[in-house]
């Protein structure tokens, strides 16, 4: 029986526990969080979950800080788990970004002062529109499952940006996506819209995952390995089938671009951003964007840099499409959340410009842009969650008329954030654009930058329109009120706006940090 002898003694892979500790902490806490849901009585869950989640962020942050701090200055990073996961400088930057933005999102998620009981449905099993549904909207409870779901999604994102082979990447993609699908459907108000968003996101997301998986399979056929480094090596030889390579690359990238809501793969974005509970929209807009572009950067730089002449033109077109779609369709929106969704599509185009620059500057510029954009976005959605009427959030633009008169502070903060999205100097948005465009011009993408600048100007129109509404129009008599936020939302908005200002005025620290090193594979 010779075939039995083929089974080698299996050696466990080397694991650098200190490096992956942040991910393990978040995942472990997510499991504990599930147990809390199982065994704690209903009235204790919210408090316990909030404490646990905060401790998780502190723990993961400390672990990351200890690891990054203990590194010798020469070490650019390591790979671990048989090379499936890399922990290098960009990954550490992205992990810190994800943890910070995740923390900001959790603050919005945990808030129960803006809407009594929180933005999440009290009893998800109740059918929308029924008497019971109206009753649940006024109850103070909420489905605290959103906390473990957030932690799982966050852990998925952290693995996604660190994944050094496509299979790990796919698993991470699913781990981050599945909780998000669910979380989209948990809104307390307008539940049909919310559930529609969840189903839409799920179906389209499943398609995107399938694309990714198909691409992965074709690339495996091409390179005989799912490791990014092996694919890169395979592209160096010329005797392999280019069809497999480019078909695989195309399908893979479609899956990634979908997650990053880059146009023309953005179709889900406005509906989902509008329907999902606002704190979840903030989480998706900030963290998912970071994770998706972290993945795109790694895949393009590590696996496909050598073949960039072949695919760059295509992504060039995609970036143009994204910017144009975001800027032009944003003009026609009448809902604040949809407007920000289209703005995020336009921003995805700008980020893609940085990603296809494939230089050190492109990498550091894109990383900085992600950090800056994430904080601004969280603050934007924090502000949006405060403008309410009897039916919940008043997101229709006409309801924002004359807001400056009712709440000058809120209008001032929102104006500042919109100017940041538009890229006016002294905000982080401007520095982000500057670094990304500088990298692009340096790498010969000047025409793309010109398109981007024109798109910025077009997009500025719809940001300005909101400012015009808030400041120059008279408030409607039955307009919405501005809720006085509790501590959590106040902190989230304040920190988001403060970081937007600090990164605009004094970006050196973050720029140096983003440019500390390249990918290790």
């Amino acid at each position, binding site marked *: 029986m010779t075939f039995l002898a083929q089974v080698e003694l299996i050696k466990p892979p080397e694991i650098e526990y200190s490096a992956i500790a942040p991910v393990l902490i978040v995942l472990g806490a997510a499991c504990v969080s599930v147990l809390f*849901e199982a065994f704690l009585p209903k009235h204790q869950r919210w408090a316990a979950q909030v404490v646990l989640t905060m401790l998780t962020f502190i723990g993961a942050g400390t672990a990351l800080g200890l690891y990054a701090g203990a590194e010798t200055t020469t070490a650019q990073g390591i790979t671990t788990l048989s090379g499936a996961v890399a922990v290098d400088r960009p990954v550490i930057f992205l992990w810190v970004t994800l943890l910070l933005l995740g923390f900001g999102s959790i603050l919005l998620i945990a808030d129960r002062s803006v809407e009594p009981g929180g933005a999440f449905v009290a009893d998800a099993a109740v059918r929308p529109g029924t008497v019971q549904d109206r009753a649940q909207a006024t109850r103070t409870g909420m489905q605290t499952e959103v906390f473990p779901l957030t932690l799982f999604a966050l852990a998925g994102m952290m693995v996604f940006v660190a994944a050094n082979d496509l299979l790990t990447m796919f698993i991470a993609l699913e781990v981050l996506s599945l909780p998000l699908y669910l979380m989209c459907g948990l809104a307390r108000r307008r539940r049909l819209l919310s559930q529609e968003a969840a189903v839409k996101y799920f179906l389209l997301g499943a398609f995107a995952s399938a694309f990714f998986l198909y691409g992965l399979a074709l690339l495996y056929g091409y390179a005989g390995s799912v490791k990014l480094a092996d694919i890169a090596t395979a592209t160096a030889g010329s005797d392999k089938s280019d069809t497999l390579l480019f078909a695989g690359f195309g399908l893979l990238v479609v899956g990634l671009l979908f997650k990053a809501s880059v146009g023309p793969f953005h179709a889900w974005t406005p509906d989902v951003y509008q329907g999902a509970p606002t704190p979840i929209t903030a989480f998706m807009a900030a963290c998912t964007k970071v994770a998706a572009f972290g993945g795109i950067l790694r895949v393009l730089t590590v696996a496909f840099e050598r073949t960039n002449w072949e695919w760059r033109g295509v992504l060039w077109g995609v970036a143009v499409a994204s910017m144009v779609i975001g800027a032009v369709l944003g003009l026609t929106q009448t809902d604040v959340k949809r407007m920000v969704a289209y703005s995020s599509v336009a921003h995805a185009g700008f980020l893609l410009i940085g990603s296809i620059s494939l230089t050190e500057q492109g990498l550091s510029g894109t990383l900085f842009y992600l950090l800056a954009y994430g904080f601004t976005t969280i603050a934007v959605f924090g502000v949006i969650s405060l403008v309410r009427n009897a039916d919940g959030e008043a997101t229709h633009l006409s309801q924002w008329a004359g807001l400056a008169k009712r709440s000058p502070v809120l209008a001032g903060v929102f104006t500042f954030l919109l100017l940041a999205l538009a890229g006016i100097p002294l905000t982080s948005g401007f520095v982000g654009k500057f670094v990304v465009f500088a990298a692009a011009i340096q790498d010969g993408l000047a025409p793309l930058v010109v398109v981007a600048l024109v798109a910025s100007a077009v997009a500025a129109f719809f940001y300005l329109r909101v400012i015009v509404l808030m400041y120059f129009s008279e408030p409607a008599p039955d307009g919405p009120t501005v809720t006085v936020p509790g501590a959590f939302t106040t902190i989230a908005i304040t920190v988001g706006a403060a970081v937007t200002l600090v990164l605009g005025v004094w970006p050196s620290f973050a720029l140096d940090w983003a440019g500390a090193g390249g990918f290790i594979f």
Partner: protein
Amino acid sequence: MLQPYLPLVFMFLLAGAFALFSVTAAPYIGPRRYNRAKLDAYECGIEPSPAPIVGGGRMPVAYYLTAMLFILFDIEMVFLYPFAVSADKLGLFGLVEIALFVATVGFAYAYVWRRGGLDWN
């Protein structure tokens, strides 16, 4: 060269033969007692085409829950088999890993159980 795969070929042949045998033999050796449920598809008690009025043609949601849980633990078993076969070769590391895996599924199980996912009504 292909010798290691020989047992697999036997396996396939055996499986095919068994299936063929079952299908052919059943009509001859099985007892026949006709009733209404017998004529349904799957013979498991579910009305395949829903009654037009009662319950609006909905299936009880508990079926989905049960099916989902079944798949979950099914997959757990699928992973446990290969572990059991080569437990000695995987050593302590493998044991810890599989314990963690079982624990993870156990958390989900605890959640379902505590939240009443296993109660039929």
